[in-house]
């Protein structure tokens, strides 16, 4: 007879071990999946997890991609994790990301073709504001009317997607684009281009901000009273209220912060790797960031590592698609599976496995 016994305290060992075990399990089941798809499982796993960093032939190209893909994931996941800690479920980061990109791009395009040095900082600000405003909608509805933030923030993703489609073909369309949908290309406009800071590293401003966000979140959560209150709200809402924490304020701060970061991520993406506002600009980073946040144990440093790992599966996935003909969708499944295994393995953090009969107390 196997049963679970609650631990008095979450196990520290398992907090770290669980993500590692989840990754191994995902590799194993993923290998079976690739075998079923007719690819050599060992080769597929090596292509995804090893080749992008160490293969002499590709690494010079794929290694910089690691930071490019990880930056938006880390930026968004940091914001989400702070909310998740307080029990505030912002599931609409994808929408905030899109709105950040649209607002930031629009603010810049309004001043085209100025080459002022202020253009890019202003666009970053506008992008952050766009994401913030989009996140304030569920936040205010929650604090005013008690509306469920999960459903509202998610519905807003679909609204943001229709807005994106509309501005890409209308308001923000490139006037010199011969009627094709999509905005001007920021890569051809130096003042607004989020270029690589050191060439060949993939390091752009989004990466810088991602690192700042990691440090900022770490300080906030471990050294600041607000971070303490956020954690308290999530772990013991009643106790938090008795100690004078106003739940409405926490909701506004947490959602606002994650909207801000997601909006920035959108702006860095549209001015950098994506280059322009287009109908299919949204990339699913907002949803993958949820996995990153959990895989990183809602801990800033953990999220940094998880973001890099998830970026690796993106790049490795593309490589596997190219080299082995593995369908691209299998990577998405791979990432979902990772979250699933993590949640399952996590039981050992809070519970101990006991084999044998229950003793009589």
């Amino acid at each position, binding site marked *: 007879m196997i049963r679970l016994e609650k631990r008095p305290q979450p196990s520290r060992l398992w907090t770290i071990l669980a993500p590692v075990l989840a990754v191994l399990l995902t590799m194993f089941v993923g290998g079976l999946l690739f075998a079923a798809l007719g690819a050599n499982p060992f080769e597929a796993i090596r292509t995804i997890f090893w080749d992008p960093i160490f293969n002499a032939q590709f690494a010079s190209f794929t290694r910089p991609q690691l930071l490019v893909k990880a930056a938006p994931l880390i930026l968004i996941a940091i914001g989400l994790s702070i909310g998740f800690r307080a029990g505030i479920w912002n599931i609409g980061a994808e929408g905030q990301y899109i709105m950040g990109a649209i607002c930031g791009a629009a603010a810049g395009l309004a001043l085209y073709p100025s080459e002022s040095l202020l253009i890019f900082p202003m666009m970053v600000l506008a992008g952050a504001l766009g994401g913030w405003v989009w996140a304030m909608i569920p936040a205010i509805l929650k604090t005013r009317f008690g509306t469920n933030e999960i459903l509202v923030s998610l519905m807003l993703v679909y609204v943001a997607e229709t807005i994106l489609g509309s501005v890409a073909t209308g308001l923000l369309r490139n006037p010199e684009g011969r009627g094709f949908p999509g905005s001007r290309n920021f890569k051809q406009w130096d003042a607004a281009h989020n270029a690589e800071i050191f060439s060949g590293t993939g390091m752009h401003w989004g990466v810088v901000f991602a690192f700042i966000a990691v440090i900022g979140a770490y300080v906030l959560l471990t050294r600041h009273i607000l971070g303490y209150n956020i954690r308290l709200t999530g772990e013991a809402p009643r106790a938090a209220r008795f100690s004078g924490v106003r739940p409405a304020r926490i909701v506004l701060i947490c959602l606002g912060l994650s909207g801000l970061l997601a909006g920035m991520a959108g702006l860095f993406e549209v001015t950098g790797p994506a280059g322009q506002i287009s109908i299919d600009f949204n990339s699913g980073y907002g949803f993958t960031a949820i996995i990153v946040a959990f895989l990183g144990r809602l801990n800033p440093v953990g999220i940094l590592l998880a973001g890099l790992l998830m970026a690796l599966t993106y790049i490795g996935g593309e490589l596997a698609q190219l080299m082995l003909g593995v369908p691209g969708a299998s990577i998405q*499944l791979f990432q*979902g599976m990772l979250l699933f295994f993590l949640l399952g393995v996590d039981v050992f953090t809070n519970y101990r496995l006991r084999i044998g009969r229950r003793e009589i107390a």
Partner: protein
Amino acid sequence: MDLSSINPILLIASIMVSATPILLAAIGEMVVEKSGVLNLGVEGMMITGAVVGFAVAVNSTSPAAGFLAAAVASALLSLAFGVLTQFLLSNQVATGLGLTLVGLGMSSLIGKPYEGIKSPTLPKLDIPVLSDIPVLGRMLFSHDLMVYLSLVLVACVWAFLKYTRAGLILRAVGESHDSAHALGYKVVRIRLLAILFGGACAGLGGAYLSLVRVPQWTEGMTAGAGWIALAIVVFASWRAGRVAIGAYLFGGVTVLQLNLQAAGADVPVALLSASPYLVTIIVLVIISALGAHGAPASLGRPFHASS
């Protein structure tokens, strides 16, 4: 704009068709939530049902087999959620999201070879006598079987929860799992059954989308229908009859905006296409502002028989 191009008879008839997938998913989710479990994976289960139903229907040329396979596949997927949340005590919100991500990934993987194919669809049942009634007949009585089945299902769920002993136990588990456990009811087993039922219903809803409503497979075709089903459960304050009303209202918005687009209404197209989601938000706000309650007290709380 030419409103006269909108035929009211066809409008009502198409509202019934467009409401059916959400109704199926929502009534299943309501049973799950009544048992105290919040499964946010409806979207993932629906799209899995859509792709499996489509694939099986195309290969067997039998839509009925498609529906059956969709229900089984989504129930199996929901079983993964059940095992994680009930035995391994994982966070229900996170696991539900994970289920959606897995479902979306898996469906596009399975669906790739089926893009651009037309599926065998359900025949319209022209119910004798009733469908011959002049206007009402075409509006209400000449649909396919699933439209009626979904309504029968709502009635069955309503009667089950209200009048049967098993329904009472299910509600008791959802209201207070500790008391139900103390009375000797198998909380985990009952919840697993509810989760399986919810999964099967979501699968049927998804299959209805890909086999009848659109009759083809496109990636991400559920486009938030599963989330809207979740919102409808809140809208309905966890009552079966109101779930049906909610689904039909929502179906009405979806069809009406399409008709208005076709008629060239003087409203931006983006606003029209976003309207189903905007309406859902507005309805949610009104419901929560009114303070309409009825959520099962144990909703979303993990149960472990340790205390």
